[in-house]
């Protein structure tokens, strides 16, 4: 415990004004349909495919990614199995990761990916292509309902909205900055 800590906390306490109230946040809601979610996610560079049912997963993946990609997944037979102990050079070889998303948010096309579903913390960003499988009953309208679902933030977790992108060169949008070059959400 450093001496700066005491000094800083004392300085803040001396400077802060009389307590002001913490507002309650109303439950702003809105539409939570597959159509809304898909429209926003498509607009921000993602792709949405609706499955007839989960048993169709392997077949649809084969159509979407005909190349024989090195696959990391807990939902399908993996050609490159990944755990939290997988060494970095193996991890860097992953071409396609298929992971389970917990729920989706219609207002911004984002999905919640908890650590437990990632296999490795770096897998969602190191893979060249990312597929997230989402039960369409698990769509909520806004971020207010989304955070209400996150009862345990865990060690690590992310809201993910579309593929990695940048517009740092003259504001030209480029998909695939550092993370996955494509993001597909498979709804079932």
């Amino acid at each position, binding site marked *: 415990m450093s001496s700066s800590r005491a000094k800083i906390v004392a300085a803040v306490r001396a400077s802060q004004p009389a307590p002001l109230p913490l507002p309650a946040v109303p439950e*702003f809601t809105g539409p939570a349909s597959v159509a809304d979610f898909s429209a926003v996610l498509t607009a921000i560079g993602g792709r949405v495919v609706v499955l007839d049912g989960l048993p169709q997963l392997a077949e649809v993946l084969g159509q979407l990614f005909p190349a024989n990609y090195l696959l990391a997944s807990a939902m399908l037979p993996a050609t490159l199995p990944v755990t939290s102990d997988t060494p970095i050079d193996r991890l860097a070889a992953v071409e396609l990761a298929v992971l389970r998303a917990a729920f989706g948010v219609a207002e911004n096309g984002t999905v919640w990916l908890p650590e437990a579903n990632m296999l490795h913390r770096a897998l969602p960003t190191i893979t060249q292509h990312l597929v997230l499988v989402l039960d369409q009953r698990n769509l909520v309208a806004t971020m207010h309902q989304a955070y209400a679902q996150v009862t345990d933030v865990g060690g*690590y977790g992310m809201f993910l909205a579309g593929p990695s992108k*940048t517009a740092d*060169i003259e504001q030209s949008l480029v998909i695939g900055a550092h993370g996955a070059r494509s993001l597909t959400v498979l709804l079932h």
Partner: protein
Amino acid sequence: MSPANTPTHAGRSELFLLDAERTTWHDETLWFVRQKRDKAVYATPEFQALRQLASDIKDHTLSRLAEYLEQFEAAALANGVRVHWAADAAEHNRLVLDIVRAAGASRVVKSKSMLTEECHLNPHLLANGVEVIDSDLGERIIQLRDEAPSHVVLPAIHLKKEDVGETFWQHLGTEKGLTDPQQLTEAARQHLREKFLAAEVAISGVNFAIAETGSVVVCTNEGNADLAIGLARVHIACLGMEKLLPRLSDLAVFTRLLTRSATGQPITTFTSHFTKPLPGREMHVVIVDNGRSKQLGRPDFRASLKCIRCGACMNTCPVYRRSGGHSYDFTIPGPIGAILSPNIDMRKHASLPFASTLCGSCTDVCPVKIDIHAQLYKWRQVLAAEGMLPASKQWSMKLLSRVLARPALFKAGGAVARLGLRFVPHGLTHAPGYNPWAIARELPAAPKQSFRAWYAQQPDHV
């Protein structure tokens, strides 16, 4: 004195304005970003209610900041996170270097953090033999060029694709003359991937820190923070103390506001919550004051600490858009920078509160309702009281207040000016040395009579 070395915003702007075509591009591009913001904002029915909530949550948090800092620390420690406190930039840099050294590391990858820019962390690490690579594409471009960011969200907005092509040709070995953003980004991806895989330590900034859970939240579009932190053994999060929020659920308000205000996106691609390190790994949070507790104690300027660094005030500012971020010569440029900087060094940044038309557009778009233009006006009063106005302004203001306080003198002065403007040659009335206002403007034709004389002639005058 060359414009780059002049100590004023106006002087430095001259350099930016030399290239008229580029200035116009800069102006129009940022205005386009502002328009994207408007589109996203108007599509969110409760946006104004969210702004008020965000403002109130921030006001509340600042009013109990000491308690929230203690709560955050306790929660983070319970999560296995190591918490450090830095009173100033030097202590922050020392702490970060100590952590890097204790880890036996020499390769660091850093994602976007205005705080580490503020503290000048990179030069400190480099001087001590630590390789530090900025991993955000825009930040990497300016790092290779040895420049400072010119915008909080779009750090390389002052550059054209030809500049980036030239830089990548020099440093990354791309083909000379390459200007395609897609190909340039791919070259950076390959170059940075090597750095990600090799880094032992990942440094990140913090967008929001949650007191109740001890989490730090990092927002990026590129995924660079997540990739680096997911691979490196040690994560150091550098946290400006004003980034605290009480509850996890408060993030709903702020994530809905941040990117809609910044770029018009509905949310950043990655909104990542770092709460606990994995077994065998380390997570450190360095909590930094560096003048923030002092600003908290200034009632007129405390609200500047509510800023969430969206950059909306820059995109909308008619002065920022036409003078560029480097003309501010401060880590945070634009209207918000102009109210933060005098707290750090009043004399050095004395010209920044004058780099504004006081039009109030910054205040209108601010997602946390900071009264930016009112604070700009208040800083001007403080600077005048401290005797930090330029001599010409001080002298002319004094003269003007004397004249305005004496109606007879005002009347006589008006008569002299009307006559003078008619007969004194243009070269003299518009001489840049005497009349800087007229450097790029024409004075209107002098009226033949004063308003008072005209009013007295009106038939229904009583």
